[in-house]
């Protein structure tokens, strides 16, 4: 064992069309690796903890870049659009400030300049055991180091554990689920669309993947419907550091209010389970209530109801509750 740090040899493909990328990805199958901004990829490869034989680099495919309006008042964001562009784009800021806020809290300015929205939602978990290259369930082995009697699991899941207790590290995923986004996926068989709420998968569904993407699939775009445009938003990410850190717990919330009461709501927590966690009981409970402190106080405890903390992460339950209070107070 060693601390590897040099890119190993591998084939590099730089297609200029999605069709070619999909064909390459299909042909390479599990031997291939689809490359977006590289902020997740290069760590894996340089550490020699993942061993693809070839990379399909999407950066030369122009149609994967950019933000455009869609019919019906929605917006389509190319998967290779950088997080910086998403956070700064006037259209996104005007209509979907929640996503702009989430994208602006990803990592650091350098990483946001390089990292893409597609990459951010497709990235792998940051469980430190898994990242060390240990042969855990998620890596195809038969143990979870984090969920063991003395496992060091401060940043792990309090919901949805199923052998694996890793969490989704994506800051934008919560916002996309809250906004009812649609993920556009292309492969050699064509284009299909998946709701953001179904895009992320937990270990009970597939323990070796974080999303529905399979070898051969290319995430090409994220579509935001008009339904949640111009809503009232709240985004907050609590992390140890204010730059270059993953969430301890985050919340993305959207509210539609009428005559001072909440007509509809979406509240989604990040970093508490392997997928962005819709707080459906909170959403139901706030309908018809004003968006204020007392509503927050009344419903906050619903957020963490049913949580099953591990050795070192029971702080996440009150933190979730507090973030719900704040979302309703703001």
């Amino acid at each position: 064992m060693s601390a590897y740090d040099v890119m190993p040899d591998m084939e590099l493909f730089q297609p200029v069309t999605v069709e070619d990328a999909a064909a390459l990805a299909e042909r390479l199958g599990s031997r291939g690796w689809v490359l977006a901004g590289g902020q997740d990829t290069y760590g894996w490869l340089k550490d020699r903890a993942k061993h693809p034989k070839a990379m399909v680099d999407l950066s030369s495919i122009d149609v994967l870049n950019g933000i455009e309006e869609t019919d019906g008042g929605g917006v389509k964001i190319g998967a290779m659009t950088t997080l910086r562009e998403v956070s700064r784009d006037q259209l996104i800021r005007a209509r979907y400030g929640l996503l702009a806020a989430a994208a602006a809290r990803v990592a650091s300015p350098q990483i946001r300049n390089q990292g893409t929205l597609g990459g951010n939602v497709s990235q792998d978990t940051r469980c430190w055991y898994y990242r060390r290259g240990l042969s855990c369930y998620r890596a195809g082995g038969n143990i979870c180091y984090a969920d063991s009697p003395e496992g060091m699991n401060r940043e792990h899941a309090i919901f949805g554990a199923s052998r694996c207790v890793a969490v989704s590290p994506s800051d934008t995923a919560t916002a996309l689920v809250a906004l009812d986004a649609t993920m556009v996926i292309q492969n050699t068989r064509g284009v299909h669309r998946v709701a953001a709420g179904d895009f992320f998968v937990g270990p009970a569904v597939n323990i070796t993947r974080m999303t529905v993407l399979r070898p051969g699939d290319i995430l090409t775009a994220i579509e935001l419907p008009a339904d949640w445009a111009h809503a009232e938003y709240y985004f907050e990410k609590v992390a140890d550091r204010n730059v270059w850190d993953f969430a301890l717990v985050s919340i993305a919330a959207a509210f539609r209010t009428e005559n001072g009461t909440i007509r509809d709501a979406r509240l989604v927590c990040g970093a508490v389970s392997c997928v962005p966690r819709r707080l459906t009981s909170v959403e139901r409970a706030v309908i018809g209530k004003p968006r204020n402190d007392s509503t927050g106080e009344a419903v906050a405890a619903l957020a963490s109801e049913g949580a099953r903390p591990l050795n070192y992460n029971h702080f996440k339950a009150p933190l979730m509750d507090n973030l719900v209070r704040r979302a309703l107070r703001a």
Partner: protein
Amino acid sequence: MSYLHIGKNFTPPDIHGKVTGKARYAEDYSVDGMVYARLYTSPMPHARVVEIDADEALAMEGVFGILTAEDVYPTEAPAPTLLTNEPVYVGDPIFAIAAIDEKTAEDALKKVRVKLEPLPFSVDPVTSLKPDGPSARLEGNIYPREMRSLHWSAEDVERFVTGREPTGPAPSEWSYGDLEAGFDNAALILEESFVTTGYAHMSMEPRSVLSYWQNGRCHVHGSTQSQSFVVPFLARMLGIEQKDLVFVAEYCGGGFGSKISAYPVLAIPGYFSKKLGRPVMLRITREEEYYVGSARVGFQGWIKAGFTREGRVSAVDLYIVQDLGSQQAGGDASSAGGAISILYQPDAMRLRDVPVLTNTTPRGPQRGPGQNQIAAIFEPMMDKAARELGLDPVAIRRLNAPDSSATLNANQGPVTSAYMKEALDRGAELFGWSERIKKSGQRNGSKVTGIGVGQGYHSAGANGFDGLVRITPDGRIHLHSGVGNLGTYSYAATTRAAAEALKCNWENCIVHHGSTEENLPWSSYQAGSNTTFTHTRANYVAAEDAIRKMKLIAAQVLGGTPDQYDIADERVFDIGNAARSLTYGEVAAKAVELGGEFSGETWPEDIHEVTQRAVQGIAGTGLIGVAKDNLPVRGTVPGLTVGFIEIELDLETGKHEIVDFLAVAECGTVLHPLGLAGQLRGGAVWGFGMAGLERHVYDPQNGLPANVGYYQTRPPTYLDIPAHMEWSAVDIADPDNPVGSRGVGEPAMGSATAALMCALSDALGGHLFNRTPVTPDVVVNHVSGQGQSHGPLATNTF
């Protein structure tokens, strides 16, 4: 006192290289035929190497060889090893492979079959101290200057982890005064148990090294805090004479205590290069830097402190279990005791110390080793005492603060001078303490204001090192600095004491540093905040020697006696007739002509071997001023600081924001204002990290480190600190330094750590966490009334 250079800003000569990118660090060097080495490090926390089968790797194209423990300098446990057959932590280097490039070397590492036999291990000192606890090394589990085994009874362990007065035997102890009487005299007695994290040094420049052999001499390009001080130690490690070592370390991308002298990695390429007959470059990865780059000693401990009704500290009983990691370390506990002894001047004190080895990353001195850990714990206790006695936090510190009659350590020795009361007064005034403290506990939504004051101390000066200056016939003044360029600019700032004595223009001065080829004098280690005090003295005595020689020459050339002459405007002149004078260049030319001591053909007997070689290297090129610092020192040289802080703590998220911070230095005469500002602000950033962010976590089941990257360890980022931090200095001269200066680097961190710890406690109504770091989860758990995740006194944990 009015100075020409002291207390004035200047542009250190390395600045241009740093801002233009032209600075050359060790890995920027390249020589013909250079090959690259990579390390194979232990995947186990403790093991015995049974077999290394490298045949397949060595048969690969582009692979040149393997270096194992049998090839290098042998050491005795628990001394650091270059390479080992008994790895004692995950990441311990076992062997190295050299190849045409790093990728080939890494490919080759994959092909080596290594058979390891696992051995018992522990990542927690108290676990090791249990009756049947595992020992970190085959030779034992404690290191009170020698390896042996120590196990407590189950009751001892239970008492310790539950925070009661420890009964477990402690192999080291010192005390002074009548402890019992001290507690009898106390109106208030506080007892607290505590834990401080021993987190990594995280040097930005991983310790890369290039080595090659030429004409029987080993050339090493490395990254070290010190320069001349490294030479004898590295030569010994390489098994060569000092004269056969060429050591280049012009720049250092941070060491923070982990690169003070010769460390094991520094010698590996030298051995490999000799074995292969090729230059060898070894670049350490970020992850490896977390293994071989050292970490702070962790504390688990207990304190009992007595206070009189007026707030005087009457007695302190301190008990510390040190986490030494897997190799030789220590001294932090005693330094912690020393810090308490000077900062609060207790009438009586005892320190008991249990230095325990664990199978974690090697530890070493990290900025304020011991002093800063205890500042984080004891300063909030001072606030607790102030609350219970109805005193103001600044007032209770002022009451106990050291002045020039202060004593410290077990021997209750004197200090050269100390003006801590003045520092507290200055800070309180600038910070507006009396108004600011009224904001303590104010609520603003979910946020609550916390106000804190913290003190820091470190001994800050040594003596007995050499200075070397040279004036060449062209009139230039060459200031030879054996001080390493650790990032504080002290290598250049201290030479200004020579320029001051020589009354010369800085523009005419050339600072030589960064390589043995530059003929540098024997110098202290660049650590322990000592350089400013130590090397202003050494430079001063060298300049005085040059002045003495210039006057002798003037008398010889112009007539009269040396004492008729003085210097000014880079001339030696007759005091009675200033027209009778020689320029420095003319004197230098005459020195070359005269030879002998004037031009360095002879030298004082008491200078170090390193300085003797430096003088030989420049002999005959000008007038040489060289001397050992034999100036008197009346006591310990204290470096003292105070930090004042205002924070807002969000009770819902556990996050704090630093609203304002002020640092006040008590370091004698300010030598270099911009350098001092950098020390105070940089130290504060580090201190904020220790108090609120930085981690050192091990999985106790597998001995695996969880923090092997910046994002996992979490040093503060730009947005975790205030955009502006004010500073000030007391600026009263220390009588034992010719320019009045003392060092201050380490306490600058300790006082910031302490201030933030105090403010966090203040925001929570005086709750003491007695633990670093206080991270958001710890605050959320406390505020929500649920227990903490970590076990009592657990270390290397979340």
